[in-house]
């Protein structure tokens, strides 16, 4: 399954700190990171905190990753300015809402604006085509970020996550 594959990629890349705001799509990956003794999973009160966390970790010599839902991308816009000005390496794994088959209309505006907002702030956006493509995309994002000091976001399509209703979401 793709969450296990992402976790393997994070381990192989030496990721030690994982900031996240919970999301149903990231549920399994968050559990895997919490269960991994080599990783410190840090729950945040807003996604913006994850950018500060990642910047501090890099200043201290550690690699990190940030997990969030597409709605959270709107919460990090100004702070991405620091990432660009300082050329902090940053990998953000975004589970998409408001994209394909969304049941909550309030998710649609931010979901549709996610790519544009990230690109406007200088983040490279990569979107895996299908489930098989997720791990290779995350692998490439980690290398781009940490070898080239780039900010990279991987947008995991809603089609792959497959949440179709409130009942579906809460039963996960």
């Amino acid at each position, binding site marked *: 399954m793709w969450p296990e594959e992402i976790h393997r990629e994070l381990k192989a890349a030496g990721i030690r700190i994982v900031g996240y705001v919970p999301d149903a799509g990231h549920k399994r990956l968050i559990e895997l990171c919490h269960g991994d003794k080599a990783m410190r999973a840090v729950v*945040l009160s807003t996604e913006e905190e994850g950018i500060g966390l990642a910047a501090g970790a890099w200043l201290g*010599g550690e690699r990190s990753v940030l997990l969030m839902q597409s709605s959270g991308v709107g919460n990090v816009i100004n702070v991405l300015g620091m990432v660009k000005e300082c050329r902090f390496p940053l990998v953000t794994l975004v589970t998409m809402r408001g994209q394909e088959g969304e049941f909550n209309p309030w998710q649609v505006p931010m979901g549709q604006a996610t790519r544009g907002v990230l690109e406007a702030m200088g983040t490279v956006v990569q979107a895996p085509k299908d489930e098989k493509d997720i791990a290779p995309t995350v692998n490439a994002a980690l290398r781009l970020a940490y070898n080239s000091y780039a900010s990279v976001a991987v947008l995991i399509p809603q089609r792959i996550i497959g949440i179709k209703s409130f009942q579906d979401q809460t039963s996960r």
Partner: protein
Amino acid sequence: MMKRRQVVKQLLAGRKNLLVVAGLGSTAWDITAAGDHDLSFPLWGAMGQAAMIGLGLALAQPRRRVLVITGDGEMLMGLGSLATIGVQKPDNLTVVVIDNERYGETGMQQTHTAAGVDLAAAALGCGFRFAEIISSPSGVRSLASLIHKSPGPNFAQVKVAAEKIPLVLPPREGTLLKARFRRALLGAKADLA
């Protein structure tokens, strides 16, 4: 009322290996007035994130002491980070808010602390081990030693005068501030990581 520059100078006097993050605006000028240092990361933006940068640094460098010095307006913008830090409980982190009850860079408008908002009580409620409002020189003296010794996370809200004082600017370029900090902390390998 205590003077902010004097307080910050006193806190940094014995800094040695201390890692220092300063919030944008007055506290970035304060730490620079005390002496610019490679192991200082003064922010020129990212308002609200000083404490979180301190947390990331504290988790990455558990054997070093980390000090965040920021303003009341900056801290109020990232109040949720007190809860995040309280949950992680890094024992090497101290957050000091230099509280003049004003937004200093924008015309000295009052912040919430002028109306009595107690940030130390918030920090205590969030799980910090130590959190106090400090308004005397003796309080600052014990804070200066607590930064280096006491198991954290520690928090202090230091009440200072609302004064207009000359700016003392650190380097502005973000890549320079980042690279010099990493090199001073991690050595030459920082450039090859």
